């Protein structure tokens, strides 16, 4: 029986790569309708965890369920994953990219795609290969947010990006997030810039959950910002 309160449930998740335990026993329940911050330094397992939820990485043991089902073709229709790396076809134009990907999703919102394109100041005729890193990050976000996905996973959406693009991306996330029917998990090590976005946070360290809970409760409990807490945890 699916627990309606949680969209993602993770139990005893382990993943080992040659020489490293990327995930070393993760137990988590992600509350529906919230924005979650998955925080941790590089190499703490954030990316691997998101890929496990997206179905791009197969765990060695333990399990992940999304609405009660293991990652599969079915869950892929409900999940939007925006990876950290550039995963779009370089030879396509911005519009071709959106036309190609949108064909595979029934929940693609054409009007929202156009609205986001405009908001992100992207030229639909430009080739992906000619876009700057910041513009490509914006395009990836348009791809991720143009759908009514129940679960949106953003892997380091701000890393290596100019400040003006960072601002646009944060505002784009806030504008498009539909808490009634959407849940978002955002991984980052840039905590101060995204601090205000989170309902809940997870501090990941060497493949384990260090702290997890409501951001506001943590502020009350520690009288510290998430960024200060982050620095303290990883000092």
């Amino acid at each position, binding site marked *: 029986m699916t627990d309606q309160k949680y969209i993602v449930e993770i139990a005893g998740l382990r993943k080992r790569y*040659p020489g490293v335990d990327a995930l070393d026993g993760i137990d988590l329940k992600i509350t529906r309708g919230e924005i979650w911050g998955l925080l941790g330094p590089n190499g703490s397992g954030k990316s691997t965890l998101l*890929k496990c939820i*997206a*179905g*791009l*990485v*197969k765990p060695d043991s333990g399990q992940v369920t999304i609405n009660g089902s293991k990652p599969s*073709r*079915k869950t*892929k*229709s409900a999940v939007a*994953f925006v*990876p950290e*790396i*550039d*995963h*779009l*076809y*370089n*030879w396509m134009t911005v519009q071709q990219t959106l036309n*190609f*990907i949108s*064909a*595979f*999703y029934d929940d693609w919102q054409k009007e929202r795609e156009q609205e986001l394109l405009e908001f992100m100041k992207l030229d639909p005729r430009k080739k992906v290969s000619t876009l700057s890193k910041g513009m490509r990050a914006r395009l990836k976000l348009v791809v991720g947010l143009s759908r009514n996905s129940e679960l949106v996973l953003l892997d380091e959406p701000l890393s290596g990006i100019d400040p003006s693009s960072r601002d646009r991306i944060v505002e784009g996330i806030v504008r498009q997030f539909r808490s009634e029917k959407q849940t978002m998990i955002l991984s980052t090590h840039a905590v101060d810039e995204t601090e205000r976005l989170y309902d809940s946070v997870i501090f990941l360290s060497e493949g384990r959950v260090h702290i997890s809970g409501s951001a506001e409760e943590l502020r009350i409990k520690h009288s510290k910002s998430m960024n200060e807490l982050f620095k303290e945890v990883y000092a």
Partner: protein
Amino acid sequence: MKRFLRLLGKDLEASKLPILFNSGLSIVWIAFLRYRYEAGWSLGMVFILMTIPLTFLPIWLMWQTYQTLRTEWREKTTYTLLLLPIPGWQITLSKWTALLIEFTIVLAALVGSALLFFLGPINEYYGSFLQAVPLTWFLRNGFLLYLGALATFSSFIILVQLAFIVSKLVGRFRGLAALWTLLLATWLVERVGIILDPLFRWLPPIHIEQLFRLDVIAQYTNYTPEIAYHYSAEVGSWLATLGLFLLSSWLLENWIETDD
């Protein structure tokens, strides 16, 4: 269907340059031969040299099969592809279809330019023969040969796809894994053919001389060969190849991980 066509469109578009390059090269080669023919090379030798691209074509197709998959990995577009909520076979089938279309286009460029550039010499030497044999005979047999080539290449493509996908399942020695998979899969396809052979003996043989209407040219040779083609062993091999196609599609959908 709409989704499959999108995939196919993308795969063809991505191979636009190699298609243009190879078609162009074929046409230039034929034009060069025509020029050499004018300069005194014999027609027989020119005809033999004309078939060189034909022997390269299957090798190129194998390379291209490997290359189209490798590019997806190198450019990290596997993320886009594997995130799509579609069965794995649509991805492999789309690439398979695109490769056969590529083969067809390059072949058409080669045959088309050969006919165009050598229309004069052919008419001069074989005019009387060509007038006696109806055009439809050439078209029919040409098409049958083309189908045969497609059938052979399509199984090659499937084996190379499997080899590539298996190589991505292992952490290291990927080249070696691909090579071994290719060899083992080829061996398996042959073995299954032999093992299942008795099951399909009841199938009637195909009479090649009827299929190709060899009687049409018999008047020139005074001899019609009788060639009965028993394909009971091939049926098993085809089934095995189909099985391997489903296997690589399943592996791609369920077991492949993206790596950075």
